[in-house]
């Protein structure tokens, strides 16, 4: 998973979305209880399994966390949330799981693999991604029902796939995708290369992809939101650092980074 280039001007799009959601969003994130701050200083290696859509944001948080806690090295494993959930249930040695949907987190919960209650640390919404300049003139979701258009989504078990299914249902359109990718990166690639005319991705992906592609916003009443939970894995090799990292993410510094990459604050 490669670092994507951030474009500040794309923040305007995010800002307008944030305004649209002002009614139901809490503008301030819940501050973590001060007491939850680790009693001991975190050291050693921390392994974080995180959804693909968190790549750029978490890389930055990782850098900042390492700077604030010298002696800690954070290692990330980015992949589709369903793949990560499978790996964790089969015993992969992760300290933290940050998923792109509560569903995948529930899989891990069901296997009793958390030592703490998952906390929602961010939210994301869908957006239509089209080729730069929107050559197919896609204006709304109903345009995607056009059989001549090649539309790509994630596979249904993957969070961005479930998101797409929900969005289409909200809009009442029937879309037949030509491919169901295993993670959102596959969708971005196909649209960026011009193979697909449009794809359903996260708002953050459009932001991260800069001028290579164009985003077509989805109206609030048709859009769907996905909550991102984060939790420490039971038996985590580095429990101290894990707790500290989760606090950081939920704290003002972490939330600032998430916002700068286009994520929405947690909805609950």
């Amino acid at each position, binding site marked *: 998973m490669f670092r994507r280039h951030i474009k500040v001007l794309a923040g305007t799009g995010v800002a307008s979305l944030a305004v649209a959601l002002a009614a139901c969003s809490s503008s301030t994130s819940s501050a973590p209880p001060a007491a939850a701050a680790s009693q001991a200083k975190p050291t050693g290696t921390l392994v974080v399994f995180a959804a693909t859509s968190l790549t750029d944001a978490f890389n930055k948080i990782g850098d900042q966390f390492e700077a604030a806690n010298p002696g800690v090295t954070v290692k990330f494993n980015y992949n589709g949330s369903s793949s990560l959930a499978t790996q964790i249930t089969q015993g992969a040695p992760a300290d933290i799981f940050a998923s792109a949907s509560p569903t995948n987190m529930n899989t891990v919960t069901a296997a009793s693999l958390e030592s703490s209650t998952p906390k929602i640390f961010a939210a994301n919404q869908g957006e239509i991604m089209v080729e730069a300049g929107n050559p197919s003139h896609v204006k709304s979701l109903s345009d995607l029902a056009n059989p001549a258009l090649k539309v790509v989504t994630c596979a249904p078990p993957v969070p961005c796939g479930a998101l797409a299914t929900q969005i289409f249902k909200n809009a009442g359109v029937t879309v037949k995708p030509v*491919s*169901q990718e295993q993670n959102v990166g596959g969708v971005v690639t196909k649209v960026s*290369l*011009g193979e697909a005319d449009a794809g359903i991705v996260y708002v953050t992906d459009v932001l991260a992809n800069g001028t290579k592609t164009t985003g077509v916003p989805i109206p609030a009443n048709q859009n769907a939101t996905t909550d991102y939970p984060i939790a420490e894995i039971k038996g985590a090799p580095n429990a101290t650092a894990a707790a500290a990292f989760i606090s950081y993410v939920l704290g003002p510094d972490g939330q600032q980074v998430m916002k700068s990459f286009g994520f929405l604050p947690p909805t609950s």
Partner: protein
Amino acid sequence: MSRAKWRLNPLVAVLAALAALFFIFPLVGLVTGAPWGHITSVITSQTALQALELSIIASLASTAIALAFGFPLAWLLARGQFPGRGLLRGLTTLPMVLPPVVGGIALLLAYGRRGFIGRPLASATGVTLPFSLAGVVVAESFVAMPFFVITVESGLRSMNRRLEDAARSLGASRRTVFLRVTLPLIWPSLAAGLVLTWARALGEFGATITFAGNLPGVTQTMPLAIYISQSSNMTDEAIALSLILVVVSLVVMVFRRDRSGAQ
């Protein structure tokens, strides 16, 4: 010619046994981990049947393409004398060392809708390869054909070409020499090449999902279906589908061993 009775060297036996077990244990794992209780329903599910059908059609088509186009290429590499032959051989075997996903991206850049070959193709004929079964065949051929070319080229090089001279001196036309002398002599390499190619095409994943995409009933071959199941935590289905693939491959491999052993 009689041989002394074959004796088993203990060191050889131990190492060979370890190697054999290394391969056998994962297969045992598959068999024991399979959902035998409801395996019939999984195997006959629409996902499984569609994926199997696509896999078989695509892999056979790729093998046929490898034969039709790979054989002349192997011939050229084995018999031709022209500058740049070594480079050509290197290029045609590159897919063997490239990670399949890289191959998929390269295929998109060449034959995709905006690719430098794909774009004129699309405007001339309206045909696009990605997201179709044809795309799957293209991806599988790309990764599998080099195996065929290498194997057959090696066979052509190692045959005694003077036998072809002998045939001509007995009155055989070039066509007769090819059909009656050359082909029978390289048959073992040819057969090995076909099996290897088919097996590689059957198992192809990275280039397929990148170039052709993943859509059940259209482009979702067995490996793709297995991967999607596995990554969606539908391990039961993944294992059952894997078993089908293993059985199919095993049948072909064992069958091939038999025939070449009988020669």
